[in-house]
């Protein structure tokens, strides 16, 4: 069972191993390589077969949980010692601190919304953007120009919300954990990070920036903490069934082929440090 650590707690070796595994997945010529994950996020960005699997829907948290797990397993195929780390943006809030150090994710883009200039994902020869809605082949960031980072108080506030989600199960839901985390409701723990990092992270092809996975790992960690308080059982997910065009607890998360219910108690697969 893997243990997911904070990016701030990684050793130099763990950072190097993670970067190497990500680059190996990018270079993989067959199967589910890194660009498959970028393309899949784009494919499921909006409605697929009358369902919003990935965004603005109840399945936002379990869909991304499974998406991260598939990515983590793909990295482990290159190095079994690699676990997905999380970026706790309530604690690590600098554009030059973890995870944006030159030995890990690299820093900001140049000139506002330009290419990242510090290794190891700087420039198209080190990290080529192949699948994107925009034409840059180099990874871009525009940190802290728009958006803001949630505070500890923001994150703590959603832990006290007992219900998982509410009708109409989308970005208009006026109560529940899911929409507060995703961003349709304050404090908006997820969307604003994409905006704050900017560049590719602000676009439909946001997984082109590897920091995407560190951000979503933290979102999953917060979901884990909420479950630790309120329960990991299938009864804690809503909707429980019978809602058309919304992924109910026993429906399959496409394209992964697993049900929502099967993702809820992850403790046999990984835990958080």
């Amino acid at each position, binding site marked *: 069972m893997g243990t997911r650590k904070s990016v701030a707690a990684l050793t130099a070796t763990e950072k190097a191993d993670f970067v190497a595994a990500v680059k190996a997945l990018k270079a993989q010529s067959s199967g589910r390589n890194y660009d498959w994950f970028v393309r899949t996020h784009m*494919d499921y*960005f909006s409605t697929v077969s009358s369902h919003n699997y990935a*965004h603005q829907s109840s399945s936002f948290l379990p869909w991304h949980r499974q998406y991260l797990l598939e990515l983590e397993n793909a990295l482990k195929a290159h190095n079994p010692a690699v676990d997905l780390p999380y970026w706790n943006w309530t604690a690590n809030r600098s554009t030059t601190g973890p995870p944006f150090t030159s030995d890990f994710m690299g820093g900001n883009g140049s000139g506002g919304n330009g290419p990242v200039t510090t290794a190891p994902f700087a420039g198209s020869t080190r990290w080529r953007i192949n699948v994107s*809605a925009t*034409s840059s082949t180099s990874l871009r960031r525009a940190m802290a*120009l728009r958006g803001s980072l949630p505070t500890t108080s923001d994150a703590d506030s959603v832990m006290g919300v007992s219900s998982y989600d509410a009708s109409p199960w989308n970005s208009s839901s006026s109560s529940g954990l899911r929409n507060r985390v995703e961003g349709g409701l304050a404090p908006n723990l997820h969307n604003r990070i*994409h905006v704050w990092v900017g560049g590719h992270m602000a*676009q*439909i092809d946001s997984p082109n920036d590897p920091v995407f996975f560190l951000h979503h790992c933290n979102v999953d960690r917060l979901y884990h903490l909420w479950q630790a308080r309120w329960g990991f059982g299938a009864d804690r997910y809503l909707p429980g069934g019978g809602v058309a065009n919304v992924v109910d607890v026993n429906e399959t998360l496409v394209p992964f082929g697993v049900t929502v219910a099967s993702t809820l108690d992850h403790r046999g697969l990984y835990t958080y440090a």
Partner: protein
Amino acid sequence: MPVATDSTATYTAVISTLNHFDPIPLDEGRHRDGLKKLAKLAVDQLGDQELTHHADHSHK
């Protein structure tokens, strides 16, 4: 977007490729400048880039 001139509803202006994570409210009241904000955001986000064919990526 079919908005009646006397509408009091607030809509959300989104170009999913560029501002899914930062939707902009748009109405005939205090968000009358929503389209202008959306246009500025699109220009700022694109910079010297162009949209690719993936910008109209079809969903399955």
